């Protein structure tokens, strides 16, 4: 195999030989190489197959815009598809594979698509897969899915660590070419906080590939001096391998830093991020993103060996790689001639320079033959270019043998970040390109993105831009200058736009990645899709991973040319993040696996674990759900036992997750009176009250108890589910609706370990650890106050409230003591046969008692629907939801209301969500009477029970109904009943 590696190369280290594989073949390159440069050095021009026609494709660029050379790099969880070979750094042991070809890149069966070319034109999918409609799901979509797409993602989890970070600066410089470096130097010297970010491995941009001296010094020495000074400035932060991919609102910029993607497996630090997603907050921004060289659209312009002229120069000067042995250039501008000069300096034959300009004012004194007024109309060669066909200005064709062709169709400023917030780029005839929008608040474009060309002009412009940005920051600055370089008058490159070579023979590609040819764009126009946004979607030009970096402006030019208007009138498609693809790993950051979301643990978590709890996730909380004992293999075994134990003896349950809010202030009582629908103004000290909160639309929001612990001091509990929501709601009421009230809210959920002690023996258990008298007389139902415990060693808050329907208490102690107290309760209860119980038993007992939870409080119910209509105060002037609760529809007696339900035959079961129908009526939602909101097996009654919301339900106790499970297609006969299955007279509560 021929090596194309020659002398030189500012980026590579020839002492650092690296082995890698390409489609299984072992190759070598050097440290500093990209996969692309090392492939070219090894003579691998053919690297992939195109998306639609499976045409052979080579490496087109040397940077971020690469449309062709997309490889799958790595293996297993570290496999990255669609990696641009031009951006992937070579490391020892790297594995790279071509995509979109089978069985291999040299012999690709899919290439037969090329023969179908005439059928696969613009709008192909829309035209072909029209009918029959039934074919879509079974035939067309699977076919399209199989054929579409580029690389394949790995199914293995990525073992790498990823993270997201924030960064802050006064000035963010995006791009570290001559303009960006000058801006960073200028601002750095002025002492402000600077971040300079560049996607490259090294700072320098165009300076890296500059073959000629700058100000009499070699370009790499000039660059080294600049970098040295930047490193010495402590206020300048340099971010290499960092692509700023988006400009978001409020001067937040998204960037991704490739921290360890370039390292071999063995060198990866598992504790360091593979990639880091930066959110950079910048007061001012200097945009120095440069310009993208454009291809020219001519026949066979996609053949491997056709490359951007500037990319050739980069491979030559930065990587010491010759693009070929005999090279031609096809360029419509003078900048590209630098490539010819550099090739000749390195002794590479330049066969010809084909310039479409008829009278090029070209200052070219090289050896190459200059063919003016000519165009390349075709290329030849099977898997790599062998020759080009040049159409002279007199109409004569000439075939010239070459093994590489450099192309330059002008320069498109990389305006993306200036347009992400909605700005539209502005067409410039002088620059033959779309320039950044004129009004880029807080962002100053400079250098090539602002239309400047050449190292000196760009550097000078960067300094000026930084001085302007510094002035916005209120800081004086002096523009940095390049030593030995005299500032000349701005040179203007006379670029002659060539959107499409008219004499083209064969397929002329506009978008290489999507296989969009010039003929597809003209076809789209003929079919009426001539708006730039429509043309994009109809032809797919500018879609996929490269988002048209090399193709959009040419497509716009072709549209404009065909309509006879300026490209400015056609305009661009919308620029949106991301500038280049960002891995899901970086976007997800550390939030995966167990770190997907935080876990909240109750202060009794350890106690529950020691008692064998099975945990269940409810929101972020881990709650104990049941406590299996030896021999219990099924959750119901445990739950039935727990229920029976609590109903006959005593149990303890962790209720620490309930929301707890301390309420203070002179107007606290008035505030409570306004947020609850029932009266709270006269709640005495030492008492708890059950309260219902409505939403302003009159429906129930949440329920809970609030206790008065002292003058102007209340303690509210909320449901676990709405703990955060209720606090936020109360804050809204206190701050927005009634800021004139003195009320102050403190979340106390985490301060207290709270446990329910329920069952007929609960008082006896608690009496063993509580010093105060808690007899029924001294501490009746709904008593609530601070108590002394353990001989005065601990204070807790005791509440005589009951969710289970049993004689019950809730005791709250400072969280750190929670486990000890729970252990003490277990020890005190041992003689009574105490059991710990979890949320399942809690649920069963509240259904048995007919207590509601958010299964019933589902946003559609009023207090009256829940049988608590009398709680809604008629006396209070105002409370949240008062007015809307009285609306006609909300007081309709036919509304679904809470009722108990049980099967007629005790052995029958039914499901939550089942609908209730009248017997004898059709099984249809048209006859719907309501639905089952909760159900369980009641160990107390020995059969299934449920709660339901049924039309006029409370008046229908004893009525026979049909319980219809529409999903299972089954019906069961049920009987409506009192929802309080257990102790409807509340005798136990008051015992």
């Amino acid at each position, binding site marked *: 195999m021929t090596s194309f590696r020659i002398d030189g190369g500012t980026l590579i280290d020839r002492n650092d030989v690296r082995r890698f594989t390409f489609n299984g073949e072992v190759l070598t390159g050097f440290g500093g190489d990209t996969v692309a440069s090392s492939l070219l050095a090894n003579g691998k021009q053919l690297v992939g197959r195109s998306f639609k026609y499976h045409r052979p494709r080579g490496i087109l660029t040397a940077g971020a815009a690469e449309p062709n050379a997309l490889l799958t790099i790595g293996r297993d969880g570290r496999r990255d598809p669609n990696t641009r070979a031009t951006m992937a750094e070579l490391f020892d042991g790297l594995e790279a594979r071509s995509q979109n070809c089978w069985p291999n890149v040299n012999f690709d069966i899919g290439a037969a698509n090329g023969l179908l070319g005439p059928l696969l034109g613009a709008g192909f999918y829309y035209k072909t897969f029209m009918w029959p409609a039934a074919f879509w799901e079974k035939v067309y979509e699977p076919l399209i899915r199989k054929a579409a797409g580029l690389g394949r993602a790995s199914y293995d989890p990525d073992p790498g660590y990823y993270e997201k970070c*924030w960064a802050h600066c006064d000035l963010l410089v995006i791009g570290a070419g001559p303009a960006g470096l000058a801006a960073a130097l200028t601002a750095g010297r002025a002492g402000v906080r600077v971040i300079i970010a560049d996607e490259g491995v090294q700072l320098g941009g165009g300076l890296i590939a500059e073959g000629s001296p700058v100000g009499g010094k070699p370009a790499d020495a000039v660059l080294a001096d600049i970098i040295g000074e930047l490193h010495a400035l402590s206020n300048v932060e340099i971010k290499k391998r960092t692509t700023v991919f*988006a400009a*978001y*609102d*409020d*001067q*937040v910029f*998204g960037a991704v830093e490739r921290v360890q993607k370039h390292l071999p497996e063995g060198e990866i630090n598992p504790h360091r991020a593979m990639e880091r997603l930066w*959110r950079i*907050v910048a007061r001012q921004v200097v945009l120095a993103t440069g310009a993208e060289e454009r291809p020219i659209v001519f026949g066979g312009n996609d053949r491997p060996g056709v490359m951007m002229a500037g990319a050739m120069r980069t491979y030559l000067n930065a990587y010491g790689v010759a693009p070929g042995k005999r090279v031609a250039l096809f360029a419509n501008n003078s900048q590209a001639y630098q490539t010819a000069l550099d090739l000749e300096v390195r002794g590479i034959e330049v066969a010809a320079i084909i310039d479409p300009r008829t009278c090029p004012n070209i200052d070219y004194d090289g050896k190459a033959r200059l063919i003016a007024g000519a165009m390349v109309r075709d290329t030849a060669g099977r898997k790599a270019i062998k020759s080009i066909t040049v159409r002279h200005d007199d109409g004569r064709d000439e075939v010239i043998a070459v093994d590489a062709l450099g192309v330059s169709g002008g320069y498109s400023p990389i305006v993306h970040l200036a347009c992400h*917030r*909605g700005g539209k780029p502005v067409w410039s005839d002088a620059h033959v390109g779309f320039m950044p929008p004129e009004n880029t608040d807080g962002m100053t474009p400079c250098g090539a993105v602002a239309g400047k060309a050449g190292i000196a002009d760009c550097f000078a412009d960067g300094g000026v831009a930084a001085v302007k940005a510094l002035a916005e920051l209120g800081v004086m600055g002096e523009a940095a200058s390049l030593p030995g370089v005299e500032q000349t008058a701005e040179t203007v490159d006379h670029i002659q736009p060539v959107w499409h070579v008219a004499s083209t023979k064969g397929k002329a590609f506009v978008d290489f990645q999507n296989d969009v040819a010039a003929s597809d764009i003209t076809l789209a126009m003929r079919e009426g899709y001539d708006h730039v946004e429509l043309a994009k979607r109809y032809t797919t030009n500018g879609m996929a991973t490269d988002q048209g970096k090399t193709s959009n402006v040419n497509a716009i030019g072709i549209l404009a040319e065909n309509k006879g208007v300026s490209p400015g009138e056609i305009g661009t498609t919308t620029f949106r*993040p991301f500038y280049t693809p960002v891995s899901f790993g970086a976007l997800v950051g550390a939030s995966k696996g167990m770190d997907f979301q935080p876990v909240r643990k109750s202060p009794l978590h350890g106690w529950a674990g020691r008692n064998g709890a099975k945990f269940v996730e409810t929101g972020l909380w881990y709650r104990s759900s049941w406590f299996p004992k030896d021999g219990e293999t099924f959750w119901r075994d445990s739950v039935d036992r727990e229920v029976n134990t609590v109903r006959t003896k005593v149990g303890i349950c962790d209720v620490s997750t309930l929301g707890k809010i301390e309420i203070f202030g002179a107007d606290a009582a008035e505030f409570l009176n306004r947020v609850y629908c029932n009266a709270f103004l006269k709640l005495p000290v030492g008492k708890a009250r059950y309260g219902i909160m409505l939403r*302003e*639309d009159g429906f129930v929001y949440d329920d809970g108890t609030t206790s008065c612990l002292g003058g102007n001091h209340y303690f509210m509990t909320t449901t676990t589910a709405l703990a*955060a929501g209720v606090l*936020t709601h109360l*804050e*809204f009421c206190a*701050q*927005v*609706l*009634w*800021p*004139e009230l003195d009320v102050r809210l403190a979340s106390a959920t985490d301060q207290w370990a709270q446990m329910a002690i329920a069952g007929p023996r609960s008082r006896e258990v608690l009496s063993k650890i509580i010093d105060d008298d808690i007899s029924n007389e001294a501490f009746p139902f709904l008593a609530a106050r601070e108590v002394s415990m353990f001989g005065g060693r601990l204070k807790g808050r005791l509440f005589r409230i009951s969710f289970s329907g049993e004689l019950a208490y809730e005791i709250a102690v400072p969280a750190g003591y929670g486990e000890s107290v729970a252990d003490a309760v277990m020890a005190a209860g041992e003689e009574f046969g105490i059991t710990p119980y979890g949320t399942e038993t809690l649920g069963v007992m509240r259904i048995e008692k007919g207590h509601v939870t958010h299964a019933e409080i589902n946003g559609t119910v009023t207090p009256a629907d829940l049988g608590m209509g009398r709680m809604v105060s008629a006396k209070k*002037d*105002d409370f949240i939801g*008062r*007015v*809307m609760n009285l609306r006609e529809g909300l007081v309709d007696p036919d509304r679904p209301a809470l009722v108990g339900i049980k099967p007629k035959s005790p052995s029958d079961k039914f499901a939550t969500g089942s609908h209730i129908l009248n017997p004898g009526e059709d099984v249809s939602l048209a006859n719907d009477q309501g639905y089952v909101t909760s159900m369980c097996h009641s160990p107390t009654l020995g059969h299934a029970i449920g709660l339901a919301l049924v039309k006029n339900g409370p008046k229908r106790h004893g009525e026979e109904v049909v319980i219809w499970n529409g999903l299972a297609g089954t019906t069961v006969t049920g009987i409506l009943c009192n929802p309080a299955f257990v102790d409807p007279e509340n005798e136990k509560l008051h015992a």
Partner: protein
Amino acid sequence: MSSLVKCPHCGLRPREEFTIRGEVATPRPDAGADEALWFDHVYLRDNPRGEHREYWHHSGGCRRWLVLTRNTLTHETSDVVDASTLKLGERA
């Protein structure tokens, strides 16, 4: 990815620290007010192209309710005040 809000109490903070409730409704009517006023307050919301006043809760910071004046077209936030000022004036 993010945008920033200048909380009058905490300074510049990312959007993730806030919970957005929606448009600042008409003031809460008196209990005896006409039903139409109540329906406006509870249900009617504008969806303008341009300036929009919204309730934002700094749930990940000081837990104060704020009123943002935000342009739905440009996303520019021209004003942020503590929501209690709606009723109390600038004192709060």
